[in-house]
C-alpha cells in the first residue's frame, strides 16, 4: 500500500476510504448476481433458491440432474445446434462484409463518410424491437420468416456495427502507405489487401467476428419475431422457460453460458494484447 500524501485532510481520507468501500460494493453488485447462478444450478430441488441443505454444504443437496435434463431434452439440443449454426453463419457474413467496408471507410477520401458511418452503426442504436417488427413485415414477403436464412441475415445486420468499430480501431493505427507502396510496386489492390492489410488488422477482425457471434448468440427479440419452432435458439428457449415454467434447467444452461463468456473474454484479452503489440511494432 502506498503511503497517503501528507497534505491529506479529513475530506481526503473520507474520499480515499469511501471510494474503496464504494468500489467494493459496485464490484459485488456487478459480479454476485452472475456468480450466484452457478451453485444454484446444482440444486437438487426444482427451486431458484438456496435450500438449507445447500447452505450446510450437504452433498445430497447438490446434483447434476438439471445438466442431464438439458442434454436429454431434444428442444435444448435443437436450440444449442441452431444457436451455433446461426451465430457462426451470421458472424462470418458480417465479418467479411464489415471488414471490407471498414477498410474503405478508413480511406481519407471516402465520400459521404459521416453519413455512411452513421448508417452502418445504426443497427446498434435502433431499438431491437423496432428492427424485429420491421423485419417481420419485410421478410414475410420473401418467405424468410421461419427460416434459418432469415435469422442469419437479421443477425448479420445486427453484428455489423461491432465489426466496423473493432476493425476501424485497428485500422487507425495502421500505416496506409504500406498498402499504397504495395500497389505502387505493381500488386493488384486485392492482393495488396490480402497480403498487407489483413495480417495487420487480423486481431481486430477476429475480435469483431467474436463480437458479431456473441451478438447473434445472445439475441432473442429478433428470434421471437422471425423464428419458427425449428429455428429456436438458446436465448429463445430460455425466454419461454422464464416466462412460462421456471425450472432450474435454465440455471444449468446459464452456467454453461457463463463458462463460454469467460472463454470468449480470455480470447479477446489475448487478441487485444497482440493487437497492441502489432500496433506498437508498425508505428515504431
Amino acid at each position, binding site marked *: 500500500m502506498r503511503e497517503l*500524501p501528507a*497534505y491529506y485532510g479529513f*475530506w481526503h481520507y473520507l474520499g480515499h476510504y469511501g*471510494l*474503496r468501500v464504494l*468500489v467494493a460494493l*459496485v464490484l459485488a453488485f*456487478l*459480479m454476485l*448476481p*452472475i456468480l*450466484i*447462478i452457478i451453485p*444454484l444450478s446444482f440444486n437438487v430441488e426444482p427451486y431458484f*433458491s*438456496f435450500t438449507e441443505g445447500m447452505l450446510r454444504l450437504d452433498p445430497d443437496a447438490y446434483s447434476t440432474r438439471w445438466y442431464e435434463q438439458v442434454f436429454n431434452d431434444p428442444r435444448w439440443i435443437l436450440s444449442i445446434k441452431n444457436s451455433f449454426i446461426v451465430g457462426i453463419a451470421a458472424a462470418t457474413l458480417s465479418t467479411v*462484409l464489415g471488414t*471490407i*467496408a471498414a*477498410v*474503405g*471507410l478508413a*480511406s481519407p*477520401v*471516402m465520400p459521404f463518410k459521416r453519413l*455512411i458511418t452513421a*448508417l452502418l*452503426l445504426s443497427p446498434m442504436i*435502433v*431499438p*431491437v*424491437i*423496432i*428492427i424485429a*417488427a*420491421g423485419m*417481420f*413485415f*419485410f421478410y414475410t414477403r420473401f418467405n424468410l420468416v421461419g427460416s434459418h436464412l432469415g435469422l442469419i441475415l*437479421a443477425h*448479420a*445486420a445486427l453484428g*455489423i456495427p461491432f465489426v466496423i*468499430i*473493432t476493425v476501424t480501431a485497428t485500422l487507425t493505427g495502421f500505416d496506409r502507405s504500406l498498402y499504397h507502396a504495395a500497389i505502387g510496386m505493381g500488386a493488384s489492390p486485392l492482393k495488396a489487401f490480402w497480403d498487407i492489410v489483413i495480417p495487420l488488422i487480423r486481431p481486430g477482425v477476429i475480435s469483431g467476428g467474436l463480437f458479431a457471434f456473441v451478438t447473434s448468440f445472445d439475441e*432473442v*427479440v429478433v428470434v*421471437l*419475431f422471425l423464428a419458427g419452432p425449428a429455428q429456436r435458439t438458446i*436465448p429463445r428457449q430460455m425466454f419461454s422457460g*422464464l*416466462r412460462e415454467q421456471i425450472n432450474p434447467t435454465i*440455471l444449468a444452461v*446459464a452456467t454453461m*453460458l*457463463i463458462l463460454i*463468456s*469467460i472463454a470468449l*473474454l480470455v480470447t479477446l484479452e489475448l487478441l*487485444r494484447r497482440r493487437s497492441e503489440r502489432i500496433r506498437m511494432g508498425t508505428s515504431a
Partner: protein
Amino acid sequence: MTATSLSKEDLGAARRALRRRKLTAFLLVAPLLVFLLFAFVAPIGSMLFRSVHNPNVADLIPDTMELMDDWDGVSLPDESLMNQFAVDLKRLANDRTSGRLAGEVNRILPGSSSVIQSTARRMRTVDDDELQQNGAALLFDAHANWQQVPIWQAIRQSGNPYTIAHYLTALDLERTPSGEIQARDGPRIYVSLYIQSLRIALFITVLTFLLGYPLAYFIANAPIRLSNILLIFVLLPFWTSLLVRTTSWIALLQTNGVVNTALMGIGLTSSPFSMLYTEFATIIAMTHILLPFMILPLYSVMKGIDPSYLRAAMSMGGKPIPAFLRIYFPMTLPGLSAGALLVFIVSVGYYITPALVGGADGQMISNLIAFHMQQSNNWPLAAALGSLLLFVILLLYWTYDRLVGTKNLSFG
C-alpha cells in the same frame, strides 16, 4: 511543390487518381451497403409504411367502400349501401374472414366487433337475393347499432387505406367524425408510457453514472495489475448473456428467492417482500445489465488523464471536492456523455428485461409494441408506436452527435 506549379495534365491525372481512390473506397463499402439496405433499412422502411398504410378493410369490402364515396357521412347511409354491405358480410362470414373486418372496425369504435360478428353469423344463412332486396332491414333486425351512424362512420374510416389514425392513437388523440383532432375520449395510455420509458431510462442512466463513475475512476488510477483484474470484473458481466443476467435477477428477487431468504434468515423481515414483477425489478436489473456500458467509455477517457493534474491541484491546498469538480470532472465529460448516451438510448427501447421481470408496472414502450405485434395483432398501431420511438431515439442521437460527436463509442 505548390498547386500553381502543376501542369494541366498533372492536375487532370491527380484528379483522376483521386476519383479512382474515391471509387475504390466506395466500392469496398458498397457490398455492405447493399446488404444493409435489404436486411436492415428496407425492413424499417416497411414498418414506417405500415404505420400509415392499412388496406385490410378496403380489400375485404371493396363494393361497399365504393358506395361509401357517395355517402355524406353524417346521416344514415342509404339502403342500397346497406344492402351491399349485408351481401359483403355474408360473403365474409362464409369465407370466415368477417373476424378480420370486425377487428379493424373495433379498433376505431370499441364494441363494434361483437355487433359485426353476431350479425355476420345471422347473414350466413340468408340467401343472396333476399340480402340484395332487404339487407338493410335484416341488419336492423340483427342489431340495433346498424340504425345508428357511428358504426357506419367507423367502417368508412377503417376502409381508408392511408391513414394517420394510428399515430393519433399512439399520441392518445382521436379524430372526431367532423374531422377535428382532439384528446382521446377514454383511457390515455401511450403518452404516459412514453414518459414512463424516458423516466425509467433517465433513472437508470443516473444510477449507472453514480455506480460507474467511482469504479471507473478507481480502475483508471489503480496500479496496472490490479486494474487488469478489476477490468475483468466489468467485462465478464458485459460478455455474459443478457438472459443469464435476467435469470439471475429472477432468482434473486422472487418471493422465495435469494434476497428474501437472506433477509428473513437474518431476521430483518418476517414476511417476504414482493420485488419481482415490479418497476423496481426492471430498474435494478437493467442498471446491472447496462452498467458496463457506462464504465467502459468512462474508463477509456480517464485512463488518458494525467493524475498529476488533480494531485497538483490538491497539493496546492485546493479543497478536494471543488478541485475534483473543477479540474478532473470536466476532462471526463466526453466519456461520461458517450456512456450516458449509450445507456439512455439502449434503455429507452429495452424489451427483454421489462418483459421478464417488470410485471404490470415495470413495462416500457417496447413491451407495448411487442404486445400489439404479438397479442392484439394491431400491426399498424405497433408500427406507429415503433416509428415514434425511432423518432425519439434518432433525435437523441442527432443531438448527441451535434454536441459531442460519436467518436467515443468503443468497447473494451
